[in-house]
Protein backbone atom coordinates (compact mmCIF):
# COMPACT_ATOMS: atom_id res chain seq x y z
CA UNK A 1 0.00 0.00 0.00
CA UNK A 2 1.31 3.44 -0.88
CA UNK A 3 1.44 5.83 2.07
CA UNK A 4 -0.29 9.13 1.22
CA UNK A 5 -0.36 12.46 3.07
CA UNK A 6 -2.87 12.26 5.90
CA UNK A 7 -2.82 8.48 6.06
CA UNK A 8 -2.58 6.82 9.46
CA UNK A 9 0.76 5.46 10.62
CA UNK A 10 2.06 2.55 8.59
CA UNK A 11 1.40 0.08 11.39
CA UNK A 12 -2.36 0.59 10.86
CA UNK A 13 -3.90 -2.09 8.67
CA UNK A 14 -4.98 0.45 6.05
CA UNK A 15 -6.52 -2.00 3.61
CA UNK A 16 -8.57 -3.54 6.41
CA UNK A 17 -9.83 -0.16 7.54
CA UNK A 18 -11.06 0.61 4.03
CA UNK A 19 -12.89 -2.70 3.98
CA UNK A 20 -14.56 -1.92 7.31
CA UNK A 21 -15.91 1.49 6.31
CA UNK A 22 -19.17 0.31 4.61
CA UNK A 23 -20.11 -1.78 7.65
CA UNK A 24 -19.17 1.14 9.91
CA UNK A 25 -21.58 3.35 7.95
CA UNK A 26 -24.33 0.79 8.62
CA UNK A 27 -23.39 0.32 12.31
CA UNK A 28 -22.63 -3.30 11.47
CA UNK A 29 -19.25 -3.65 13.17
CA UNK A 30 -18.36 -5.36 16.41
CA UNK A 31 -17.24 -3.01 19.19
CA UNK A 32 -13.50 -3.65 18.75
CA UNK A 33 -13.67 -3.07 15.01
CA UNK A 34 -15.65 0.10 15.59
CA UNK A 35 -12.97 1.49 17.90
CA UNK A 36 -10.29 0.62 15.34
CA UNK A 37 -12.15 2.46 12.57
CA UNK A 38 -12.84 5.53 14.71
CA UNK A 39 -9.16 5.84 15.63
CA UNK A 40 -8.21 5.59 11.96
CA UNK A 41 -10.85 8.14 10.94
CA UNK A 42 -9.50 10.65 13.46
CA UNK A 43 -6.15 10.65 11.70
CA UNK A 44 -7.03 10.24 8.05
CA UNK A 45 -8.86 12.68 5.77
CA UNK A 46 -8.74 10.01 3.08
CA UNK A 47 -10.71 7.54 5.20
CA UNK A 48 -13.17 10.28 6.16
CA UNK A 49 -13.74 11.10 2.49
CA UNK A 50 -14.30 7.42 1.69
CA UNK A 51 -16.69 7.06 4.63
CA UNK A 52 -18.65 10.14 3.49
CA UNK A 53 -19.41 8.33 0.24
CA UNK A 54 -20.90 5.35 2.09
CA UNK A 55 -22.72 7.56 4.59
CA UNK A 56 -24.33 9.43 1.71
CA UNK A 57 -25.88 6.17 0.45
CA UNK A 58 -26.99 5.34 3.99
CA UNK A 59 -28.42 8.86 4.58
CA UNK A 60 -30.33 8.81 1.29
CA UNK A 61 -31.84 5.46 2.24
CA UNK A 62 -32.94 6.89 5.60
CA UNK A 63 -34.34 10.06 4.05
CA UNK A 64 -36.32 8.40 1.29
CA UNK A 65 -38.11 5.70 3.28
CA UNK A 66 -41.44 5.32 5.05
CA UNK A 67 -44.42 7.62 4.95
CA UNK A 68 -45.28 7.37 8.64
CA UNK A 69 -44.96 10.53 10.73
CA UNK A 70 -44.37 10.92 14.45
CA UNK A 71 -47.21 12.32 16.53
CA UNK A 72 -47.58 16.08 16.63
CA UNK A 73 -46.70 16.41 20.31
CA UNK A 74 -43.31 14.68 19.98
CA UNK A 75 -41.63 18.02 19.30
CA UNK A 76 -43.06 19.44 22.54
CA UNK A 77 -41.99 16.36 24.51
CA UNK A 78 -38.45 16.65 23.14
CA UNK A 79 -38.22 20.34 23.95
CA UNK A 80 -39.50 19.68 27.48
CA UNK A 81 -36.99 16.84 27.93
CA UNK A 82 -34.17 19.02 26.57
CA UNK A 83 -35.18 21.81 28.94
CA UNK A 84 -35.13 19.38 31.86
CA UNK A 85 -31.72 18.02 30.84
CA UNK A 86 -29.85 21.28 30.82
CA UNK A 87 -27.28 22.64 30.34
CA UNK A 88 -29.24 25.13 28.35
CA UNK A 89 -32.31 27.12 29.20
CA UNK A 90 -35.02 27.23 26.58
CA UNK A 91 -33.91 29.86 24.15
CA UNK A 92 -37.42 31.21 23.65
CA UNK A 93 -37.32 32.34 27.28
CA UNK A 94 -33.67 33.24 27.24
CA UNK A 95 -34.00 35.07 23.97
CA UNK A 96 -36.76 37.21 25.37
CA UNK A 97 -34.75 37.94 28.47
CA UNK A 98 -31.57 38.70 26.58
CA UNK A 99 -32.98 40.24 23.44
CA UNK A 100 -31.19 43.62 23.20
CA UNK A 101 -33.35 46.54 24.16
CA UNK A 102 -33.25 49.81 22.19
CA UNK A 103 -30.24 51.98 22.76
CA UNK A 104 -31.22 53.67 26.02
CA UNK A 105 -27.72 53.13 27.30
CA UNK A 106 -26.56 55.48 24.56
CA UNK A 107 -29.11 58.05 25.63
CA UNK A 108 -28.00 57.77 29.25
CA UNK A 109 -24.41 58.22 28.12
CA UNK A 110 -25.38 61.34 26.15
CA UNK A 111 -27.16 62.78 29.19
CA UNK A 112 -24.16 62.03 31.42
CA UNK A 113 -21.84 63.62 28.86
CA UNK A 114 -24.08 66.71 28.73
CA UNK A 115 -23.91 67.02 32.51
CA UNK A 116 -20.13 66.76 32.37
CA UNK A 117 -19.92 69.35 29.59
CA UNK A 118 -22.18 71.73 31.49
CA UNK A 119 -20.18 71.14 34.67
CA UNK A 120 -17.00 71.99 32.75
CA UNK A 121 -18.51 75.12 31.31
CA UNK A 122 -19.67 76.10 34.81
CA UNK A 123 -16.11 75.77 36.20
CA UNK A 124 -14.72 77.85 33.37
CA UNK A 125 -17.31 80.58 33.99
CA UNK A 126 -16.39 80.81 37.69
CA UNK A 127 -12.73 81.26 36.77
CA UNK A 128 -13.66 83.99 34.33
CA UNK A 129 -15.74 85.74 36.98
CA UNK A 130 -12.69 85.89 39.26
CA UNK A 131 -10.68 87.35 36.46
CA UNK A 132 -13.18 90.25 35.80
CA UNK A 133 -13.86 90.64 39.51
CA UNK A 134 -17.59 90.78 38.90
CA UNK A 135 -18.61 87.85 41.04
CA UNK A 136 -22.22 88.81 41.54
CA UNK A 137 -22.95 89.31 37.86
CA UNK A 138 -21.34 86.00 36.98
CA UNK A 139 -23.22 84.25 39.79
CA UNK A 140 -26.45 85.56 38.39
CA UNK A 141 -25.44 84.48 34.90
CA UNK A 142 -24.53 81.02 36.17
CA UNK A 143 -27.89 80.73 37.89
CA UNK A 144 -29.63 81.48 34.65
CA UNK A 145 -27.41 79.01 32.85
CA UNK A 146 -28.06 76.30 35.48
CA UNK A 147 -31.80 76.87 35.19
CA UNK A 148 -31.55 76.53 31.43
CA UNK A 149 -29.53 73.35 31.86
CA UNK A 150 -32.11 71.99 34.28
CA UNK A 151 -34.90 72.76 31.80
CA UNK A 152 -32.94 71.05 29.06
CA UNK A 153 -32.39 67.96 31.25
CA UNK A 154 -36.07 67.86 32.16
CA UNK A 155 -36.94 67.96 28.47
CA UNK A 156 -34.52 65.14 27.71
CA UNK A 157 -35.94 63.06 30.57
CA UNK A 158 -39.48 63.54 29.24
CA UNK A 159 -38.34 62.61 25.73
CA UNK A 160 -36.57 59.56 27.09
CA UNK A 161 -39.70 58.43 28.95
CA UNK A 162 -41.69 58.71 25.73
CA UNK A 163 -39.04 56.75 23.83
CA UNK A 164 -38.99 54.08 26.56
CA UNK A 165 -42.75 53.63 26.35
CA UNK A 166 -42.60 53.49 22.56
CA UNK A 167 -39.76 50.96 22.60
CA UNK A 168 -41.62 48.76 25.09
CA UNK A 169 -44.69 48.77 22.85
CA UNK A 170 -42.49 47.90 19.86
CA UNK A 171 -40.90 45.08 21.82
CA UNK A 172 -44.32 43.63 22.69
CA UNK A 173 -45.36 43.79 19.04
CA UNK A 174 -42.07 42.18 17.99
CA UNK A 175 -42.49 39.35 20.51
CA UNK A 176 -45.99 38.73 19.16
CA UNK A 177 -44.72 38.64 15.58
CA UNK A 178 -41.89 36.26 16.50
CA UNK A 179 -44.35 33.90 18.20
CA UNK A 180 -46.68 34.09 15.21
CA UNK A 181 -43.82 33.40 12.83
CA UNK A 182 -42.72 30.36 14.88
CA UNK A 183 -46.28 29.01 14.74
CA UNK A 184 -46.44 29.54 10.97
CA UNK A 185 -43.06 27.84 10.49
CA UNK A 186 -44.29 24.82 12.50
CA UNK A 187 -47.45 24.63 10.42
CA UNK A 188 -45.47 24.93 7.19
CA UNK A 189 -43.11 22.11 8.24
CA UNK A 190 -46.09 19.92 9.11
CA UNK A 191 -47.76 20.64 5.77
CA UNK A 192 -44.55 19.90 3.90
CA UNK A 193 -44.16 16.56 5.70
CA UNK A 194 -47.75 15.65 4.83
CA UNK A 195 -47.21 16.65 1.22
CA UNK A 196 -44.19 14.37 0.92
CA UNK A 197 -46.23 11.58 2.51
CA UNK A 198 -49.04 12.13 0.04
CA UNK A 199 -46.62 12.07 -2.89
CA UNK A 200 -45.17 8.78 -1.73
CA UNK A 201 -48.64 7.40 -1.12
CA UNK A 202 -49.75 8.40 -4.61
CA UNK A 203 -46.70 6.69 -6.05
CA UNK A 204 -47.66 3.48 -4.21
CA UNK A 205 -51.37 3.65 -5.02
CA UNK A 206 -50.78 4.32 -8.69
CA UNK A 207 -49.13 0.95 -9.20
CA UNK A 208 -51.17 -1.33 -11.47
CA UNK A 209 -51.22 -4.25 -9.03
CA UNK A 210 -52.40 -2.25 -6.04
CA UNK A 211 -55.94 -2.86 -4.72
CA UNK A 212 -58.00 -0.45 -2.63
CA UNK A 213 -60.43 -1.39 0.12
CA UNK A 214 -62.70 1.48 1.13
CA UNK A 215 -64.05 1.90 4.64
CA UNK A 216 -66.84 4.21 5.67
CA UNK A 217 -68.12 5.55 8.96
CA UNK A 218 -70.25 3.13 10.98
CA UNK A 219 -70.46 4.71 14.43
CA UNK A 220 -68.49 7.90 14.93
CA UNK A 221 -68.69 8.51 18.69
CA UNK A 222 -68.73 12.29 18.36
CA UNK A 223 -69.07 14.34 15.21
CA UNK A 224 -65.74 15.50 13.82
CA UNK A 225 -64.91 17.85 10.93
CA UNK A 226 -66.38 15.54 8.26
CA UNK A 227 -67.63 11.94 8.12
CA UNK A 228 -64.66 9.65 8.66
CA UNK A 229 -63.20 7.64 5.77
CA UNK A 230 -60.63 4.89 5.59
CA UNK A 231 -58.75 3.05 2.91
CA UNK A 232 -56.62 -0.09 2.90
CA UNK A 233 -54.10 -0.09 0.09
CA UNK A 234 -52.60 -3.48 -0.65
CA UNK A 235 -50.27 -5.05 -3.16
CA UNK A 236 -51.72 -8.55 -3.74
CA UNK A 237 -48.38 -9.72 -5.18
CA UNK A 238 -46.91 -9.96 -1.72
CA UNK A 239 -45.97 -6.33 -1.31
CA UNK A 240 -46.84 -4.06 1.58
CA UNK A 241 -50.14 -2.79 2.90
CA UNK A 242 -50.96 0.71 4.04
CA UNK A 243 -53.93 1.89 6.06
CA UNK A 244 -55.03 5.49 5.65
CA UNK A 245 -57.73 7.30 7.63
CA UNK A 246 -59.21 10.75 7.34
CA UNK A 247 -61.37 12.67 9.84
CA UNK A 248 -61.25 10.08 12.62
CA UNK A 249 -61.78 11.87 15.91
CA UNK A 250 -58.46 12.16 17.87
CA UNK A 251 -58.65 10.08 21.05
CA UNK A 252 -57.29 10.68 24.54
CA UNK A 253 -54.04 9.05 25.68
CA UNK A 254 -55.89 6.08 27.23
CA UNK A 255 -57.35 4.98 23.90
CA UNK A 256 -56.16 4.09 20.41
CA UNK A 257 -57.66 2.95 17.14
CA UNK A 258 -57.22 -0.73 16.29
CA UNK A 259 -57.59 -2.09 12.76
CA UNK A 260 -58.95 -5.62 12.25
CA UNK A 261 -59.34 -7.93 9.28
CA UNK A 262 -62.24 -10.40 9.50
CA UNK A 263 -62.13 -13.90 8.08
CA UNK A 264 -65.69 -14.55 9.26
CA UNK A 265 -68.19 -12.91 11.58
CA UNK A 266 -66.37 -14.41 14.54
CA UNK A 267 -62.74 -14.53 13.50
CA UNK A 268 -60.80 -11.28 13.41
CA UNK A 269 -57.07 -10.56 13.28
CA UNK A 270 -55.52 -7.33 14.56
CA UNK A 271 -53.38 -5.63 11.90
CA UNK A 272 -52.50 -2.32 13.53
CA UNK A 273 -52.91 -0.15 16.62
CA UNK A 274 -52.49 3.52 15.84
CA UNK A 275 -53.35 7.10 16.69
CA UNK A 276 -54.46 9.91 14.40
CA UNK A 277 -53.22 13.48 14.26
CA UNK A 278 -55.31 16.52 15.12
CA UNK A 279 -57.03 16.40 11.72
CA UNK A 280 -57.97 12.74 12.06
CA UNK A 281 -55.31 11.64 9.58
CA UNK A 282 -53.14 8.54 9.88
CA UNK A 283 -51.05 6.59 7.41
CA UNK A 284 -49.88 3.30 8.88
CA UNK A 285 -48.07 0.28 7.43
CA UNK A 286 -50.02 -2.84 8.50
CA UNK A 287 -49.26 -6.55 8.81
CA UNK A 288 -51.71 -9.06 7.37
CA UNK A 289 -52.12 -12.49 8.96
CA UNK A 290 -50.04 -15.16 7.27
CA UNK A 291 -51.20 -18.57 6.02
CA UNK A 292 -54.38 -19.17 4.08
CA UNK A 293 -56.54 -16.58 5.81
CA UNK A 294 -59.07 -15.14 3.39
CA UNK A 295 -60.07 -11.68 4.56
CA UNK A 296 -63.68 -10.64 3.93
CA UNK A 297 -63.99 -7.42 5.91
CA UNK A 298 -61.77 -4.72 7.32
CA UNK A 299 -62.79 -2.62 10.33
CA UNK A 300 -61.42 -0.04 12.73
CA UNK A 301 -62.54 -0.05 16.37
CA UNK A 302 -61.70 2.07 19.39
CA UNK A 303 -59.55 0.13 21.86
CA UNK A 304 -57.62 0.78 25.06
CA UNK A 305 -54.13 2.25 24.37
CA UNK A 306 -51.93 -0.59 23.15
CA UNK A 307 -54.87 -2.52 21.66
CA UNK A 308 -56.98 -5.45 22.81
CA UNK A 309 -56.98 -9.19 21.96
CA UNK A 310 -60.45 -9.22 20.39
CA UNK A 311 -62.52 -6.35 19.01
CA UNK A 312 -65.22 -4.92 21.28
CA UNK A 313 -68.00 -2.50 20.49
CA UNK A 314 -69.12 -1.27 17.12
CA UNK A 315 -66.53 -0.44 14.48
CA UNK A 316 -66.12 3.25 13.67
CA UNK A 317 -65.04 2.40 10.10
CA UNK A 318 -65.65 -0.77 8.09
CA UNK A 319 -65.73 -2.04 4.54
CA UNK A 320 -65.64 -5.25 2.46
CA UNK A 321 -62.17 -6.38 1.42
CA UNK A 322 -61.46 -5.72 -2.23
CA UNK A 323 -59.31 -8.13 -4.21
CA UNK A 324 -57.99 -7.18 -7.59
Amino acid at each position, binding site marked *: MVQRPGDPPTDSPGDSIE*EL*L*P*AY*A*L*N*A*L*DADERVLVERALADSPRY*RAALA*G*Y*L*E*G*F*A*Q*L*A*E*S*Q*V*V*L*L*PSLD*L*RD*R*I*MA*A*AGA*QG*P*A*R*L*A*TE*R*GRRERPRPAFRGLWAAVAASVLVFAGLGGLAVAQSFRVNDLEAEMEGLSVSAAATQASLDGQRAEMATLTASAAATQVRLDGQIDEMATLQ*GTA*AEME*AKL*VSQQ*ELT*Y*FVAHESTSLTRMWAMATPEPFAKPARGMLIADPD*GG*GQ*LLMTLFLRPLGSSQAYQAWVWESDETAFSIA*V*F*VVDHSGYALV*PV*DFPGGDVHVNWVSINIAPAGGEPTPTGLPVLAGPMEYR
Partner: protein
Amino acid sequence: MDSFPPTDADLTSRVSSGDAEALEELYSRYSKPVFGMSYSILRDYATAEDVTQEVFVALWTRADRFDPARGEFRHWFLHLAHNRIVDELRRRRRASLRSADKTPEDVSLGLVSRGDTADQAVSAVMFGAAAEALKLLPPEQREAVMMAYLQGATQREIAERTDVPLGTVKTRLRLGLIRLRRILAQPASEEA
Protein backbone atom coordinates in the same frame (compact mmCIF):
# COMPACT_ATOMS: atom_id res chain seq x y z
CA MET B 1 -22.07 36.62 8.46
CA ASP B 2 -24.75 34.08 9.34
CA SER B 3 -26.36 32.35 6.34
CA PHE B 4 -30.11 32.22 5.90
CA PRO B 5 -31.63 29.75 6.22
CA PRO B 6 -28.99 28.67 8.72
CA THR B 7 -26.91 25.64 7.81
CA ASP B 8 -27.08 22.48 9.87
CA ALA B 9 -23.61 23.27 11.16
CA ASP B 10 -24.72 26.77 12.26
CA LEU B 11 -27.72 25.30 14.06
CA THR B 12 -25.62 22.63 15.75
CA SER B 13 -23.20 25.26 16.98
CA ARG B 14 -26.15 27.21 18.41
CA VAL B 15 -27.54 24.03 20.02
CA SER B 16 -24.20 23.42 21.72
CA SER B 17 -24.46 26.86 23.30
CA GLY B 18 -27.96 26.09 24.56
CA ASP B 19 -30.21 27.56 21.87
CA ALA B 20 -33.46 25.56 21.98
CA GLU B 21 -34.86 27.29 18.90
CA ALA B 22 -31.95 25.83 16.91
CA LEU B 23 -32.85 22.36 18.26
CA GLU B 24 -36.45 22.87 17.13
CA GLU B 25 -35.24 23.78 13.64
CA LEU B 26 -33.07 20.65 13.48
CA TYR B 27 -36.10 18.64 14.65
CA SER B 28 -38.10 20.08 11.75
CA ARG B 29 -35.38 19.02 9.34
CA TYR B 30 -34.59 15.57 10.68
CA SER B 31 -37.53 14.17 12.67
CA LYS B 32 -39.01 12.44 9.63
CA PRO B 33 -35.94 10.37 8.63
CA VAL B 34 -35.05 9.64 12.27
CA PHE B 35 -38.58 8.54 13.18
CA GLY B 36 -38.91 6.71 9.85
CA MET B 37 -35.74 4.72 10.53
CA SER B 38 -36.80 4.09 14.10
CA TYR B 39 -40.26 2.84 13.17
CA SER B 40 -39.12 0.68 10.26
CA ILE B 41 -36.47 -0.99 12.44
CA LEU B 42 -38.30 -1.28 15.77
CA ARG B 43 -41.81 -1.73 14.33
CA ASP B 44 -43.47 -0.16 17.36
CA TYR B 45 -44.86 3.36 17.18
CA ALA B 46 -44.41 4.28 20.86
CA THR B 47 -40.88 2.86 21.11
CA ALA B 48 -39.96 4.57 17.85
CA GLU B 49 -41.09 7.89 19.30
CA ASP B 50 -39.20 7.25 22.55
CA VAL B 51 -35.98 6.51 20.68
CA THR B 52 -36.48 9.54 18.43
CA GLN B 53 -36.83 11.63 21.58
CA GLU B 54 -33.63 10.14 23.02
CA VAL B 55 -31.75 10.90 19.83
CA PHE B 56 -32.76 14.56 19.82
CA VAL B 57 -32.12 14.96 23.56
CA ALA B 58 -28.68 13.42 22.97
CA LEU B 59 -28.13 16.02 20.25
CA TRP B 60 -29.09 18.71 22.76
CA THR B 61 -26.55 17.56 25.33
CA ARG B 62 -23.77 16.45 22.99
CA ALA B 63 -23.94 18.74 19.97
CA ASP B 64 -20.39 19.90 20.68
CA ARG B 65 -19.15 16.48 19.59
CA PHE B 66 -20.02 17.30 15.98
CA ASP B 67 -16.97 18.63 14.13
CA PRO B 68 -17.95 20.26 10.81
CA ALA B 69 -14.36 19.90 9.61
CA ARG B 70 -14.81 16.12 9.66
CA GLY B 71 -17.98 15.76 7.61
CA GLU B 72 -21.60 16.70 7.06
CA PHE B 73 -23.94 17.07 10.03
CA ARG B 74 -26.57 15.05 8.14
CA HIS B 75 -24.23 12.06 7.88
CA TRP B 76 -23.10 12.36 11.49
CA PHE B 77 -26.58 12.75 12.96
CA LEU B 78 -28.39 10.07 10.94
CA HIS B 79 -25.53 7.66 11.63
CA LEU B 80 -25.77 8.50 15.35
CA ALA B 81 -29.53 7.98 15.25
CA HIS B 82 -29.24 4.63 13.47
CA ASN B 83 -26.63 3.55 16.00
CA ARG B 84 -28.99 4.37 18.87
CA ILE B 85 -31.92 2.59 17.17
CA VAL B 86 -29.84 -0.51 16.50
CA ASP B 87 -28.68 -0.47 20.14
CA GLU B 88 -32.33 -0.52 21.21
CA LEU B 89 -33.07 -3.39 18.81
CA ARG B 90 -30.13 -5.40 20.17
CA ARG B 91 -31.21 -4.65 23.75
CA ARG B 92 -34.71 -5.95 23.03
CA ARG B 93 -33.24 -9.01 21.37
CA ARG B 94 -31.07 -9.77 24.43
CA ALA B 95 -34.05 -9.24 26.75
CA SER B 96 -36.14 -11.59 24.65
CA LEU B 97 -33.37 -14.20 24.76
CA ARG B 98 -33.18 -13.95 28.56
CA SER B 99 -36.91 -14.13 29.11
CA ALA B 100 -37.88 -16.95 26.77
CA ASP B 101 -34.95 -19.33 26.50
CA LYS B 102 -34.70 -18.77 22.77
CA THR B 103 -31.79 -19.02 20.38
CA PRO B 104 -30.46 -15.88 18.66
CA GLU B 105 -32.00 -17.13 15.43
CA ASP B 106 -35.45 -17.27 17.04
CA VAL B 107 -35.26 -13.62 17.97
CA SER B 108 -33.45 -12.25 14.96
CA LEU B 109 -36.67 -10.26 14.48
CA GLY B 110 -36.30 -12.22 11.33
CA LEU B 111 -37.38 -10.51 8.25
CA VAL B 112 -34.63 -11.76 6.08
CA SER B 113 -32.80 -14.96 5.59
CA ARG B 114 -32.48 -15.66 1.92
CA GLY B 115 -32.98 -14.37 -1.60
CA ASP B 116 -36.57 -13.60 -2.40
CA THR B 117 -37.53 -13.35 1.28
CA ALA B 118 -35.62 -10.09 1.25
CA ASP B 119 -38.09 -8.73 -1.32
CA GLN B 120 -40.96 -9.45 1.06
CA ALA B 121 -39.03 -7.84 3.89
CA VAL B 122 -38.55 -4.67 1.88
CA SER B 123 -42.25 -4.55 1.03
CA ALA B 124 -43.25 -5.24 4.62
CA VAL B 125 -41.46 -2.35 6.26
CA MET B 126 -40.41 0.18 3.66
CA PHE B 127 -42.30 2.33 1.22
CA GLY B 128 -41.51 4.98 -1.30
CA ALA B 129 -38.23 5.59 -3.05
CA ALA B 130 -36.19 3.66 -0.48
CA ALA B 131 -38.13 0.46 -1.12
CA GLU B 132 -37.91 0.92 -4.87
CA ALA B 133 -34.16 1.53 -4.65
CA LEU B 134 -33.59 -1.53 -2.48
CA LYS B 135 -35.53 -3.66 -4.95
CA LEU B 136 -33.15 -2.51 -7.69
CA LEU B 137 -30.15 -3.94 -5.85
CA PRO B 138 -28.95 -7.43 -6.75
CA PRO B 139 -30.61 -9.83 -4.25
CA GLU B 140 -27.43 -10.68 -2.36
CA GLN B 141 -26.52 -7.00 -1.88
CA ARG B 142 -30.09 -6.18 -0.85
CA GLU B 143 -30.04 -9.01 1.66
CA ALA B 144 -26.77 -7.84 3.25
CA VAL B 145 -27.81 -4.17 3.42
CA MET B 146 -31.26 -5.02 4.82
CA MET B 147 -29.83 -7.28 7.51
CA ALA B 148 -27.44 -4.55 8.65
CA TYR B 149 -29.77 -1.58 8.26
CA LEU B 150 -33.08 -3.05 9.46
CA GLN B 151 -32.05 -5.96 11.67
CA GLY B 152 -28.97 -4.50 13.32
CA ALA B 153 -26.87 -7.48 12.27
CA THR B 154 -23.09 -7.08 12.29
CA GLN B 155 -21.19 -8.07 9.16
CA ARG B 156 -19.97 -11.16 11.04
CA GLU B 157 -23.55 -12.15 11.92
CA ILE B 158 -24.60 -11.62 8.31
CA ALA B 159 -21.79 -13.94 7.17
CA GLU B 160 -22.90 -16.60 9.66
CA ARG B 161 -26.61 -16.38 8.88
CA THR B 162 -26.16 -16.34 5.12
CA ASP B 163 -23.32 -18.84 5.18
CA VAL B 164 -20.98 -16.79 2.99
CA PRO B 165 -17.39 -15.68 3.72
CA LEU B 166 -16.94 -12.46 5.70
CA GLY B 167 -15.00 -10.89 2.83
CA THR B 168 -17.97 -11.47 0.54
CA VAL B 169 -20.30 -9.74 3.01
CA LYS B 170 -17.94 -6.74 3.14
CA THR B 171 -17.97 -6.52 -0.64
CA ARG B 172 -21.78 -6.81 -0.78
CA LEU B 173 -22.23 -4.02 1.78
CA ARG B 174 -19.77 -1.80 -0.08
CA LEU B 175 -21.31 -2.35 -3.50
CA GLY B 176 -24.84 -2.13 -2.07
CA LEU B 177 -24.24 1.28 -0.49
CA ILE B 178 -22.52 2.64 -3.59
CA ARG B 179 -25.37 1.47 -5.81
CA LEU B 180 -28.04 2.79 -3.42
CA ARG B 181 -26.39 6.18 -3.46
CA ARG B 182 -26.37 6.19 -7.25
CA ILE B 183 -30.00 5.06 -7.55
CA LEU B 184 -31.37 7.46 -4.95
CA ALA B 185 -29.40 10.41 -6.28
CA GLN B 186 -31.06 10.32 -9.67
CA PRO B 187 -34.62 10.30 -11.03
CA ALA B 188 -36.24 6.84 -11.17
CA SER B 189 -36.53 6.95 -14.96
CA GLU B 190 -32.76 7.11 -15.41
CA GLU B 191 -32.20 4.00 -13.34
CA ALA B 192 -34.95 2.09 -15.12
